[in-house]
């Protein structure tokens, strides 16, 4: 259960969750990941009650360009690999467990870690395929951006659907798609039996580790296939003269300071960088453009987790790529009208509850 009165993000642990947490908080990989910011800052403020760092903006996988989805997948697989070595596993394989601090992916679902039970396979593998791998393959192998699909289907792309769409001899397809679909059809409704069979046969975590490492190599090599982009060369072809563009940049820079700025139609991020804001959300309807901006940002200096507010002069454009966000902007504006700002200047809690999936 996750809720946020007073703008805090709190999580209450069940009794089983408390046992897992007690083991987790002492795990080396967990402490390391907390320290370098790959896992959202978490502290136990009362027994069984955790408080998480509040991230400035919550976004969804169908709002991310390819490169962001891929980096979220790699974060998930990396954490899983480290966790397995110490006897933990991630219950699921969902990109909804990943949020962003600037251009850095952050794993936010601490409750997803649990102690690995002996003989158990990775229950999240199927979900990893439907929500991470198949959407990435769809774009890498067929040049079809998956965002519209992910908006319509919260569970992602089914193995049978992926099999119908993906070319069978591209890397990873025969195993993770074709064979996956066949086995699924053959063994439907046998979950309990299969689990006990695997356990009796001595299924080991090394099998999961081997699979996770193969998936990592596979995902690392996926790159987006994109057609001609309407907006990619916009800056060069733009209707602004250099002088007008410079004037616009000065205007934007002078209109700060602000806590959180949305740049709608950010393109190459020139004006996102110019604005004096603590956080900048760069939005663009062109997936290629958003992907390129993210890549440029991700290559830059890395954000660090902070307990206090960051210095005001540092803008961190966080990239998203969907027209969908224009709709969210309207919703956010409407929410602000309903919930007036507090006197101390904190932004009101919006639709940001990190729900348990």
């Amino acid at each position: 259960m996750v809720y946020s009165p007073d703008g805090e993000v709190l999580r209450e642990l069940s009794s089983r969750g408390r046992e897992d947490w007690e083991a987790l908080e002492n795990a080396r990989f967990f402490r390391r990941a907390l320290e370098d910011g790959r896992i959202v800052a978490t502290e136990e403020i009362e027994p069984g009650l955790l408080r998480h760092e509040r991230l400035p903006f919550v976004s969804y996988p169908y709002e991310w360009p390819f490169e962001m989805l891929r980096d979220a997948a790699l974060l998930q697989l990396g954490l899983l690999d480290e966790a397995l070595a110490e006897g933990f596993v991630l219950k699921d394989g969902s990109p909804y467990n990943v949020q962003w601090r600037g251009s850095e992916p952050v794993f936010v679902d601490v409750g997803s870690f649990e102690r690995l039970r002996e003989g158990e396979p990775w229950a999240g593998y199927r979900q990893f395929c439907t929500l991470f791998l198949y959407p990435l393959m769809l774009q890498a192998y067929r040049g079809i951006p998956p965002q519209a699909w992910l908006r319509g289907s919260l569970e992602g792309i089914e193995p049978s659907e992926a099999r119908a769409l993906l070319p069978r001899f591209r890397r990873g397809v025969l195993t993770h798609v074709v064979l996956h679909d066949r086995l699924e059809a053959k063994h439907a409704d046998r979950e309990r039996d299969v689990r006990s069979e695997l356990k009796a046969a001595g299924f080991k975590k090394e099998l999961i580790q081997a699979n996770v490492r193969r998936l990592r190599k596979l995902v690392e090599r996926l790159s987006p296939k994109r057609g001609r982009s309407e907006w990619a060369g916009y800056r060069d072809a733009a209707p602004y003269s250099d002088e007008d563009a410079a004037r616009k940049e000065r205007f934007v820079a002078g209109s700060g300071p602000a806590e959180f700025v949305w740049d709608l139609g950010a393109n190459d991020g020139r004006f996102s960088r110019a604005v004096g804001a603590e956080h900048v959300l760069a939005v663009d309807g062109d997936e290629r453009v958003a992907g390129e901006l993210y890549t440029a940002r991700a290559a830059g200096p890395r954000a660090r987790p902070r307990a206090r507010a960051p210095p005001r002069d540092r803008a961190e454009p966080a990239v998203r790529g969907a027209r969908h966000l224009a709709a969210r902007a309207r919703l956010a504006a409407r929410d602000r009208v309903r919930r007036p700002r507090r006197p101390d200047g904190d932004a009101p809690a919006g639709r940001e509850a990190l729900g348990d999936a």
Partner: protein
Amino acid sequence: MSPLGYLDAGSGSMLLQIILGGAAAIGVTMKLTWRRFLRALRIRRDDDDT
């Protein structure tokens, strides 16, 4: 026996993990197949999973 999680892990997906486990999996696969074989021949009973 572990409780079923909130997630549909997929029986086919779980079995696939053996194949994907590569060489490490050979031992597990052999054991699985052997037990099934024995059960099919009724040398082992269904609940006899030690």
